[in-house]
């Protein structure tokens, strides 16, 4: 048996040697041109063009969408429109879902009491698990159900490759691929989904850049935090339309800062850790095709929203339980939660934050959506996550804890820049199959978040601005 296998290996080697001797470098070109000639011949016999060969419709649309004058404004307008649809459209269904879950909770609690279940069981399952999970559903589901289908429609229509075409020059400057603009846009919806979408980038080096920096675009789960803090603290002196405008302006500023960080990090990485890995770039600009509206919407809502949501729930549910447990298990007269707060406080203060905020970010690792509710829970020491209906109440809670605009700004910055959520990290591992790169994806944002908030805090305090 050994012998015959060795024999076989020998003949394979001989075959290989023979082939190598016969092979020439120009052979590939000959093969491909024979192939093209054959295709051309067959086509000339079987295909007839009754109109001009050009696709006039696509050319006309491209003249607009990739125009030196209109290309960028249209792109920004599209992005703005998606944000607007997502934020404005999700508002009502989000609050409807929230009140539905609150309504349902009363009945569930009643059932628990009717069955004489112990308080801790009700605490873990209802106040921890149920509240944690339903918060995530009501905050995440509506925006996802709007964002992903809208994005998918633009994708099926063929607009997205044009964005990559327009933006490539900028990305090339920092050593990245134009298609990264698309994975970034996807990141506004969900970084975890965006990490998977980096598969559209064929060259491994550029793909890695896109994975490692995707976190610097704020996802759906962080919009809530950003919007609430911006409108409470940044636009405090304004009223009415001006208030909306100022807080939107602040958020746009934060997003632009995130994009700036993306470029800087990409540039540094492509000069250091990701230097020298080969690069190739081709981008097909397919013809514009009117998407099957219904099919696209249904498919993308079902697949993406559902999958992302299921993962979020799988992770948010344990986080809810854990938070409840930490806040309700006392050692002496201090809960584990408070031990954490006290431990983190000095460090957090140097970043312009406080121990509660830091702990909320740590416990919020599984999903960014739970950061704000965990923080509020800590401040109010209710021991379970809660939802505050009235923004004015919310501001008073923060002010009572000694918040200033600096606290708000740095929490926004930390939220923008800090490590990716658990789901995203899992996806990064799945895509890179490397603990090292997953750790790098965790480390880079964390270091930047700490560095930036520290610098801002020192600067603002040093100048005596707060």
């Amino acid at each position: 048996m050994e012998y015959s296998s060795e024999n076989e290996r020998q003949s394979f080697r001989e075959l290989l040697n023979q082939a190598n001797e016969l092979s020439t470098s120009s052979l590939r070109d000959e093969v491909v041109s024979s192939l093209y000639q054959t295709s051309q011949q067959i086509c000339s016999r079987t295909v007839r063009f009754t109109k001009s060969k050009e696709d006039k419709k696509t050319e006309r649309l491209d003249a607009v969408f990739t125009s030196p004058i209109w290309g960028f404004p249209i792109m920004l307008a599209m992005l703005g429109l998606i944000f607007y649809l997502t934020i404005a459209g999700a508002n009502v269904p989000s609050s409807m879902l929230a009140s539905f879950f609150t309504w349902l909770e009363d009945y569930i609690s009643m059932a628990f009491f009717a069955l004489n279940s112990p308080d801790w069981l009700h605490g873990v399952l209802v106040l921890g698990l149920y509240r944690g999970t339903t918060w995530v559903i009501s905050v995440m589901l509506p925006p996802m159900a709007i964002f992903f289908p809208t994005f998918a429609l633009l994708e099926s229509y063929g607009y997205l490759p044009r964005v990559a075409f327009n933006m490539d020059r900028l990305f090339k400057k920092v050593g990245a691929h134009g298609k990264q603009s698309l994975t970034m846009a996807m990141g506004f919806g969900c970084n975890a989904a965006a990490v998977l979408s980096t598969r559209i980038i064929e060259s491994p080096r550029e793909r890695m850049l896109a994975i490692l920096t995707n976190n610097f675009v704020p996802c759906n789960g962080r919009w809530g935090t950003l919007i609430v803090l911006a409108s409470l603290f940044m636009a405090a002196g304004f009223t009415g339309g001006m208030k909306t405008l100022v807080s939107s302006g602040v958020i746009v500023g934060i997003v632009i800062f995130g994009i700036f960080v993306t470029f800087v990090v990409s540039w540094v990485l492509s000069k250091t850790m990701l230097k020298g890995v080969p690069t190739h770039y081709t981008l097909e600009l397919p013809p514009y095709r009117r998407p099957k509206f219904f099919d696209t919407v249904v498919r993308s809502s079902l697949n993406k929203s559902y999958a992302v949501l299921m993962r979020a729930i799988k992770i948010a549910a344990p986080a809810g339980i854990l938070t409840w447990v930490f806040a309700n298990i006392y050692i002496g007269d201090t809960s584990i939660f408070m031990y954490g707060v006290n431990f983190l406080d000095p460090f957090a203060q140097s970043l312009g934050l406080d121990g509660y905020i830091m702990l909320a970010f740590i416990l919020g690792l599984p999903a960014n959506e739970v950061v704000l509710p965990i923080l509020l829970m800590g401040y109010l020491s209710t021991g379970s996550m809660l939802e505050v209906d009235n923004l004015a109440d919310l501001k008073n809670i923060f002010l009572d804890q000694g918040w200033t605009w600096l606290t708000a700004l740095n929490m926004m910055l930390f939220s923008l820049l800090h490590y990716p959520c658990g789901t995203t990290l899992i996806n990064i591992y799945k895509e890179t199959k490397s603990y090292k790169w997953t750790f790098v994806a965790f480390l880079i944002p964390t270091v930047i978040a700490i560095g930036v908030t520290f610098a801002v805090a020192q600067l603002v305090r040093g100048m005596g601005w707060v």
Partner: protein
Amino acid sequence: MTTNEVYRIALAGNPNTGKSTLFNALTGLKQHTGNWAGKTVSLAEGSVHYKKSTYRLIDLPGTYSLYSNSTDEEVARNYIVFEKPHVTLVVLDATSLERNLNLALQVMEMTSNVIVCVNLIDEAKKRGIEIDELKLMRQLGVPVLKISARNKTGFPALLDTIDRMIRGEITTSPYAIQYNDEIEGKISELVPNVKKLVGDRFPSRWIALRLLDGDTSLLDEIQKRMHQEEESTWNTVQKTSGSHLENF
């Protein structure tokens, strides 16, 4: 009477040809289709039932060629050559048939159980492109069908052709590209030696050509596959069936 036989049907094609749309339309399996290259990296599977048979459709990655320049191309190539699907459907974009035909010609060098689907036929009509599918069929030597995956037209004829091909009612004679004399000479030098090693299990002319092109990893793959074959009559498919949700 044999009922409910399962046959594997592979879908190959360039990116942006509506291959995934066809896959979705046939199987009803919900999977998002992208409008650019390299969207489906792992293989999605879905089933169609037709005349007491079950067709297991495998959506190969969309590629421009099968010369294994990328993982996608290697996955697609390996599936067609080594997993030997009962039928390989090559999906072509009617609006850019010339480039798309390259892939069909490459597949036809690898297997003779090929059906060519000219997709986006509605789009082509709008742009004044007329394709003579009967002539094309005679030229290529394999069945050619015009379809529109998004409008779900041409499906009955397609399913019927698959059925007849599986039952051996269709004999194909795939067009074999003639290369220049030098290359043809080298191919005929290699083919007997390839045949000695692999027998009729794998397409020897195609293997010879790939070896001449410097594709050395192919031989390792063949060796590996032949050993697996000896150990057990394996039927492992690199499948990720059911995981399509995670792979959006």
